């Protein structure tokens, strides 16, 4: 091979990430039983909430919406992505358990591409979930005030949220090397979800619950998606939907890379 034919470092990194991503996405497609609950449960809760709380839209502090369904969309997206993101991290832990991860590390593959590639399945699924929730709820009266551009921003936001949560769970997978530990950590995400404005507005909460929701990043993420649903397109709503998950992504992926380095140093 001539020097000109040799792939550059960047091309090699991209090719590796794409190959790893392809493997992760195929793994998600091949295991529908793992991901279907993260589609059905959020939709069930939206259906339940829309029937149970349809009259709650008139209470003081509730944002101005046409129906509870419009309010609930953001909750279903965040909830679904949180459920789904553990799938990628569990797969990473399984790779560690069965030794495949060690073989990848022994190969001349970039560490970052191994990690990002593994999380790509969750990212693709996060975007798909966002689109599916919107498409499924549209015939039931959902209105996305920010239009097609808003939907596209939400899909991008969904991908970023999936990467942010996936990064956190990947750090746990790398640290423990146990798929059971990753799944065991899921209730923590569930607790975080309920102590946020994902299901009900912060303005109607009081005391310690409101105090936790006020600092919970999931509140701000949900409210970003919600703004795009119930308000017309605005720069602040786009920024909230994209920048907060992006900031979290930087933090969690850095954490997982650091955990990976720690694991390599230890071995």
């Amino acid at each position: 091979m001539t020097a000109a034919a040799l792939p550059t470092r960047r091309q090699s990194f991209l090719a590796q990430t794409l190959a790893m991503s392809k493997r992760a996405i195929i793994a998600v497609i091949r295991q529908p039983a793992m991901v279907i609950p993260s589609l059905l449960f959020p939709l069930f809760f939206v259906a339940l909430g829309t029937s149970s709380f349809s009259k709650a839209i008139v209470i003081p502090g509730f944002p101005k919406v046409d129906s509870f369904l419009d309010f609930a969309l953001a909750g279903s997206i965040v909830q679904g992505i949180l459920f789904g993101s553990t799938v990628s991290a569990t797969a990473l832990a399984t790779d560690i358990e069965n030794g495949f991860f060690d073989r990848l590390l022994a190969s001349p593959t970039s560490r970052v591409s191994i990690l990002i590639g593994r999380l790509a399945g969750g990212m693709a699924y996060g975007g798909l979930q966002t689109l599916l929730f919107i498409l499924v709820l549209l015939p039931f009266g959902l209105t996305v005030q920010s239009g097609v551009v808003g939907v596209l921003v939400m899909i991008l936001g969904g991908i970023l949220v999936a990467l942010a949560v996936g990064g956190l769970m990947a750090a746990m997978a790398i640290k423990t090397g146990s798929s059971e530990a990753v799944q065991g950590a899921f209730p923590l995400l569930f607790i975080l979800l309920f102590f946020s404005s994902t299901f009900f507005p912060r303005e109607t909460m009081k005391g310690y619950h409101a105090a936790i929701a006020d600092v919970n990043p999931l509140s701000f993420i949900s409210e970003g998606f919600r703004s795009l649903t119930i308000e017309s397109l605005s720069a602040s709503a786009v920024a909230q939907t994209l920048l907060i998950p992006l900031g979290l992504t930087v933090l969690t992926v850095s954490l997982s890379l650091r955990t990976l380095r720690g694991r390599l140093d230890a071995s």
Partner: protein
Amino acid sequence: MSATLSSAGGIAVRSVRNLLRLPSVFLPALLMPTFQVVSFTGTYRGVTEIPGFPTDHAANWYLPLAVVMGCSFAGLGIGFTTIRDIESGFYDRLRMSPAPRRSLLMGPLLAAWVRAVFAIVLVTIVGTLLGARLTDGVLGLLTLAAAGIGIATVGTGWALGLAYRFRDMRAAAIMQLTLFFGLFLTDANSPLNVMTGWLHGVARINPLTNILRLARTGFLGEVTWSDSWGGLVAIGVLGVLAMWFARTGLNKLDD
């Protein structure tokens, strides 16, 4: 009869001892309803401001829901331990023993009631700390306990019946999902008069709605017969059906 009672007591004592030896198996079933009362009371505090909502304290509405949920999972927990016993072969030894067949159902049922009492006590204490108040004194606690023990009976029968039929952990998912969906397809989140749409129709005919009404009656005003009898009938009918389901499952296990 005394042989049945003594064997059932032995099985129940073993099950309760297992709670102390393996708390990790039982703790999630206690923590889940506790978390539910904390999270629902905080998250949905504002729903009490909906016109027509029967209480102005969210804890009064969600404490009974968490108790009923926790007690139903107390029954399901018995199903999980039965599956483990079947898989480990211990259940074969139980079946080969001269213990009356009825005791194999009564023992787990007694153990489920003990678990349910733990859930009732813990969730009631936490709910009270969050602001729940009885509106008709001790009678309200009795109706709450009756609903809790009743749903634990239904849950136990349902879980045992599935455990005997599937004989492995596949049954666990079915146990959980059916009760989970069954309980949420009621007036779990908001009362029937506040509800709209499809759920209203489903919740109206769901017998578990009556059990929840029984659990809540002492937290929403005076305990009345009209709010209680439906729940008691639902517990009676569903309890008998569930235990019959368990009994026929046990017979299949013998085949």
